């Protein structure tokens, strides 16, 4: 009997809690929290405590599958890799490299994202690589890049505890980032003021000093009004503005247009509440802004993020401890996947593909010519596939059939492809459409690193041998690359890839598996092997030099309710499930907590429409309709309905629209117009 405890990192949200896997004879039998971990401090949420239960699940993909005559047949690795390499080569030969597109995975390690990014750019020669950050925090990267010069959380998670005022906007923190939510509650108990702005009455609202129930999509209006109030009250940091920022005058004129009266009319927040919130934020010594998808998933996502940055600049709440603008990244490694350059316009470490010097560096190291045009983003890939300019897609650990907006069109697009490869741990809804399915190893079966939301690089360690014939993603990619004639992929282990990453990526320059293995907790930028990592960004000077104010105007969401579709649909997640539910719906305790989807309807609306608790309703938009049971609750205001997007039997994204933010190309998943009706019997 062989018993072992392996320290690794939780595969769910961006908190990045360390935990121990209990291993008994090559079986993961349990999870023990890690008391010395600075993030979790020996605490975990329900998902973390049961994260091991999917590892040995009967549904795990155990062999490669190849579609033959409409059915999947088991195949050997040699056969499957041959098929993939031949098809990709022939499509590249016939239609050019840009006919192939890659979706990387925020569930995979940094090393794997780097390998896939390198594969797309060297072996195929295309910049068509993206991942699910496009659907969650693309606007954070564009917005904060232009304001500060770095598109990540400015401060670290433990600092939240010591803030004097916490402004949470568009984040259901307690449910989506429980360990960060707990820190907010702790800060509140220590005496911090808590302001929550959200259209939906989330669990955090019961702790709030001020709750601003805004209309969906009016964040810019609220924030501009907020800043106008601060300006009128004289609660701005003039010294900070003159010394460390630029563009203030133009910005000042813009926010003066947003009077409390206008905010009341557009966002539905009255003057008193607005003033109370603004004063609490403005008077605090250390005020921090925490935001998530409620801010980013809009056609005005970049504007929303810039407004958050403006607010922090206006009050001088950046570059100090327990302050900052803190986007909470959703996936365990979505920060890392962005850092590793699984993006159409950046190499690893946000080095632009259009920058000749950066491209030259990568070309020199990889000994090949690289494309200079930025590639397509995730939703654009779907469009291109739909129109036929993309012929093949290689999807690693993503499930766009549930997560992308306007799923009906996604299905048509994926079906229109000549060739689709999906690499995943389970046969997801997307994998069911694939030509070749490659079984990947789970987080417990491979070595690597994740980067959590506060930029901390965390080790993932191998606890058991791979399940069935599955292989770690980097192994699959390397073997495929070798089959396709590349000599740049002779990696023996994940640390080899990390060495290449740190050589090519200045912000990861000092990070290595050896350092992480002796227990160092490193947050990038960490440029040298003797650098101890950066707890908070922009101290003394901004990454881009000076902080940049951007005047931002309020623009309505792309699709507003009308007579035919009178309700605003906002989508989101639940405590007990994760994203497309591929993993969490296979964990018994999570499934027993919430086993299927629902639509939250305000009691007033429900009464008017004759909808009772748990009655079946049909929710329809211009793009499709779903059948789902109703949950009548005052958590949502009248005129707004909420549907979680985890559930394959009632896919919320059938309804959502693929309207994109012009800069970040993030779809507006938080606002679309729907109508809702009781399901007629026998209809």
């Amino acid at each position: 009997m062989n018993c072992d405890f392996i320290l690794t990192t939780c595969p769910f949200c961006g908190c990045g809690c360390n935990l121990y896997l209990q291993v008994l004879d090559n079986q993961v039998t349990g999870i023990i929290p890690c008391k010395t971990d600075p993030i979790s401090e020996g605490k975990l949420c329900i998902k973390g405590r049961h994260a091991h239960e999917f590892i040995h699940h009967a549904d795990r993909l155990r062999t490669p599958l190849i579609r033959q005559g409409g059915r999947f047949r088991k195949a050997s690795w040699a056969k499957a890799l041959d098929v993939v390499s031949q098809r990709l080569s022939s499509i590249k030969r016939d239609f050019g490299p840009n006919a192939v597109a890659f979706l990387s995975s925020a569930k995979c390690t940094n090393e794997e994202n780097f390998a896939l990014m390198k594969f797309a750019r060297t072996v195929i020669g295309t910049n068509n690589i993206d991942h699910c950050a496009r659907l969650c925090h693309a606007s954070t990267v564009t917005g904060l890049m232009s304001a500060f010069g770095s598109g990540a959380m400015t401060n670290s998670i433990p600092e939240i505890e010591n803030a004097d005022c916490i402004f949470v906007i568009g984040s259901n923190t307690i449910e989506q980032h429980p360990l960060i939510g707990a820190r907010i509650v702790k800060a509140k108990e220590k005496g911090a003021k808590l302001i929550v702005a959200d259209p939906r009455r989330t669990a955090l609202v019961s702790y709030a000093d001020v709750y601003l129930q805004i209309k969906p999509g009016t964040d810019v209006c609220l924030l501009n009004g907020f800043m106008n109030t601060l300006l009128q009250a004289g609660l701005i940091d003039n010294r900070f503005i003159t010394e460390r920022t630029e563009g203030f005058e133009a910005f000042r004129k813009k926010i003066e247009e947003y009077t409390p009266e206008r905010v009341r009319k557009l966002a539905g927040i009255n003057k008193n509440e607005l003033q109370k919130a603004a004063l609490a934020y403005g008077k605090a010594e250390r005020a921090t802004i925490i935001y998530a998808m409620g801010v980013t998933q809009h056609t005005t996502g970049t504007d929303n993020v810039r407004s958050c940055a403006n607010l922090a600049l206006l009050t001088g709440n950046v570059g100090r401890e327990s302050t900052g603008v803190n986007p909470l990244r959703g996936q365990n490694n979505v920060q890392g996947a962005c850092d590793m350059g699984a993006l159409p316009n950046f190499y690893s470490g946000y080095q632009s593909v259009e920058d000749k010097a950066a491209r030259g560096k990568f070309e020199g190291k990889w000994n090949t010519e690289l494309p200079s045009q930025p590639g397509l983003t995730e939703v654009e890939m779907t469009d291109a596939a739909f129109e036929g300019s993309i012929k093949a897609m290689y999807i690693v650990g993503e499930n766009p059939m549930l997560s992308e907006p306007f799923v009906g069109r996604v299905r048509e697009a994926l079906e229109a492809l000549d060739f689709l490869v999906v690499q995943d741990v389970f046969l997801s809804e997307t994998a069911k459409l694939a030509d070749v399915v490659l079984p990947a190893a789970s987080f417990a079966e491979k070595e690597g690193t994740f980067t959590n939301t506060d930029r901390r690089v965390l080790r993932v360690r191998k606890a058991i041998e791979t399940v069935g014939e599955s292989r770690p993603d980097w192994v699959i990619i390397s073997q495929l690359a070798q089959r396709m004639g590349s000599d740049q992929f002779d990696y023996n282990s994940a640390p080899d890839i990390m060495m290449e990453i740190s050589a090519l990526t200045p912000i990861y320059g000092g990070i290595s598996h050896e350092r992480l293995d002796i227990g160092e907790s490193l947050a990038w930028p960490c440029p040298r092997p003797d650098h101890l990592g950066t707890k908070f960004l922009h101290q003394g000077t901004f990454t881009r030099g000076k902080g940049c104010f951007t005047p931002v105007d309020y623009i309505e969401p792309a699709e507003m309710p009308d007579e035919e579709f009178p309700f605003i649909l906002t989508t989101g997640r639940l405590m007990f499930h994760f994203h497309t539910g591929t993993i969490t719906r296979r964990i018994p305790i999570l499934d027993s907590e919430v086993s299927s989807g629902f639509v939250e309807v305000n009691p007033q609306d429900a009464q008017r429409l004759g909808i009772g608790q748990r009655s079946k309703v049909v929710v329809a938009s211009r793009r499709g309709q779903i059948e789902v049971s109703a949950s009548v609750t005052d958590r949502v205001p009248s005129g707004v309905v909420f549907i979680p997007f985890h559930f394959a039997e009632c896919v919320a994204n059938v309804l959502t629209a693929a309207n994109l933010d012009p800069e970040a190309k993030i779809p507006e998943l938080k606002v679309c117009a729907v109508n809702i009706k009781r399901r007629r019997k026998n209809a």
Partner: protein
Amino acid sequence: MDTNSETKKVGAVLVLGGGIGGIQASLDLAESGFLVYLVESSPAIGGIMAQLDKTFPTNDCSMCILAPKLVEAGRHLNIELITNAEVEEVSGEAGRFRVKIVRKPRYIDLEKCTGCGLCAQTELPPESELKETEGEIWVDRIMIDESKCIQCGDCVQACIEENKERQGLANIAFQRRQFLWLPPEEREGRAPETLMQTIALMDVASRNDFWQRELSKCIKCYGCRDVCPICICDECDLESADWIAPGQIPPDFPLFHLIRAYHVADSCVGCGACEATCPMNIPLLSIHNWVHRQDPQKLFELVPGLDPKTRRKLIDNVKRTPIAKRKVRV
């Protein structure tokens, strides 16, 4: 042989931690001729193993292995036990360390204490009455645990009444007496209140509010149950949809935590793992401490299932909350 008194090695060893590992090390060292100082932070040696029933993986009786060693360590001439103490400072080099040890207050003057045990009886249940061992009364275990003391002063009262001349409870403890009856303005400036004291000072309504507020922080991770060393049931009432609607954050019936508190009341070892692992920092150990100490009537104004009136109250309460999906039989 080195005879220089500056560099001469000392024939004494300090073992830090009086769990099974520390005890065994002390015994081995003592047998080899070293003088051993065994320092332990809790009031008694034995550690976690003393709380266990069986040991992994052989399933041996834990106490059968531990008890002879405890006795031996307690009696060994070469072992000096320093319990209820912490190491503050270590200086010197290998072979001749100087260690500064801080003994925590016991609040008992052991020279005066007669070992009558009446102080303990005021709070502990009768079966933990102190025992006489070989003609001597075992007084070593009497100690006021600061984290749990609510400063009611009953122990001091008992000591004064029984021992008119020699009062073993030392002055500090004596000062604690009647803390609860002091007016609030006089309480200020004294040692800060522990959570237990704060709760003790609340009236019933605000105590109820306190628990409602604390327990409604629950995010249903089931961590308290999962890490509990004595929670072993196959089926758990906490997951029962009859009591508490699944998938609700915060839970609409926060007091469902008391189901577990009373379920484990008689076997809780007070390890505090539940509180340590709670992501929302609910003071779960305090619930258990209270449940140990007092009956539910005193704590929550309720005696479940005793008289029809209270039973009615309980059922009404369950009916009022939306969790009662199934019909309650009355």
